[in-house]
C-alpha cells in the first residue's frame, strides 16, 4: 500500500508564545522563530566574515565578499550608479528570502517563504518603496511611467489601463511566484519521500532520486531568491529612470 502521508502538515503554524494585543492575535509562532533564526544566521555569517577584515581576504571573508559582490553586481547591472543608494534594501530583501528558502531545506524546519502572507508582505514592501522612490525623484512626472514614450496619443486610452493593471499586478506575481515555488517544492519532497518510505526495500532507488530532488530544490531556493532580488532591482530601475 502506497501512502502519501500528510504533505500539507509541514506548513502548519503553531503558537509558541501566545500573546494577544486587543483583539489581534500576535503570538510568537514557529514562522516568526525561523525568521529570527534566518536573520541571526545571516548576521552571524556577515559579522564573522568581516570581523578581522583585511585587504587580502581570508577564506571566510572571501565567501562573504563573493556574496556581497553578487548582489551588488545584480543591482548595478540593472540600475547603474544611480541605484546604488538603495543597495541595502535589495541586499536585505535578497538575504531574507534566501535564508527563508535555504533554512526550509533543513528537515523538520519551517519555510517561512512558503506562506503567501509573508511573501506578499515582502512584495508589498518592495512595490510601495519603489513607488515612493519614483514619486520622490520625479514628482507627478512619475505617472508618465504608465504611458511609454513614443506611444501615439490615440493609443493612450488603451495603453494607460493596461500599464496601470500590469503595475498593480506586479506584487501579486512577485509574491505568488516565490510562494508557489517554495510550497510546491516542499510538497513534492514530502510526497516523494513518503512514497519511497512506504514501499520498503524497493524504495532504495527512489530514495536516491529524492536526494537528487533535494539538490534541485537547493538550486530553486537560490534561483527564486535571485529572481526576487532581480525583479526588485528591475522595478527600482523603472522608477529611477522611468521609461
Amino acid at each position: 500500500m502506497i501512502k502519501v502521508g500528510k504533505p500539507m502538515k509541514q506548513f502548519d503554524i503553531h503558537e509558541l508564545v501566545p500573546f494577544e494585543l486587543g483583539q489581534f492575535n500576535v503570538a510568537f509562532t514557529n514562522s516568526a522563530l525561523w525568521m529570527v533564526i534566518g536573520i541571526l544566521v545571516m548576521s552571524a555569517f556577515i559579522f564573522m566574515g568581516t570581523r578581522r577584515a583585511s585587504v587580502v581576504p581570508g577564506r571566510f571573508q572571501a565567501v562573504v565578499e563573493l556574496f556581497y559582490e553578487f548582489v551588488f553586481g545584480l543591482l548595478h547591472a540593472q540600475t547603474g550608479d544611480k541605484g546604488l543608494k538603495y543597495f541595502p534594501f535589495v541586499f536585505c530583501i535578497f538575504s531574507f528570502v534566501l535564508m527563508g528558502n535555504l533554512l526550509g531545506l533543513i528537515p523538520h524546519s519551517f519555510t517561512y517563504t512558503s506562506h503567501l502572507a509573508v511573501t506578499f508582505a515582502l512584495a508589498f514592501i518592495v512595490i510601495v518603496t519603489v513607488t515612493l522612490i519614483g514619486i520622490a525623484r520625479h514628482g507627478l512626472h512619475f505617472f508618465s511611467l504608465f504611458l511609454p514614450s513614443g506611444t501615439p496619443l490615440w493609443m493612450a486610452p488603451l495603453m494607460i489601463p493596461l500599464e496601470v493593471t500590469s503595475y498593480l499586478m506586479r506584487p501579486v506575481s512577485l509574491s505568488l511566484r516565490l510562494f508557489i515555488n517554495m510550497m510546491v517544492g516542499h510538497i513534492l519532497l514530502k510526497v516523494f519521500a513518503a512514497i519511497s518510505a512506504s514501499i520498503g526495500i524497493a524504495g532504495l532507488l527512489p530514495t536516491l532520486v529524492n536526494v537528487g530532488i533535494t539538490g534541485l530544490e537547493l538550486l530553486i531556493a537560490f534561483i527564486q531568491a535571485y529572481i526576487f532580488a532581480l525583479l526588485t532591482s528591475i522595478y527600482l530601475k523603472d522608477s529611477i529612470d522611468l521609461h
Partner: protein
Amino acid sequence: MTFEIAKVFAAAFSALALFGVALSMGRVVSSGLESIARNPSASGDIQKFGILGMAFTEALGLFVLFVILLILFAV
C-alpha cells in the same frame, strides 16, 4: 453533475494549460542550445539567461497548480 464532480473536472482540465508551459519551456531550451551552437564562446551568459528563463516559465506552470489547488480545496 454534482458540484464535487464538476470541481474535479475543472481541476483536471486546468492542467491543459501545462501544454503551453511545456511548449514555451521547450522553446527556451531549444533556442538556448541553438545560440550556443552558433556562438559557443557566449555559452556562459546564455546558460545564465536560460536558467532564468526556465525559472520564469516554470513559475507559470506552478500558477496553474495554484489555481488547481484553489479549485479543489478553496472553492
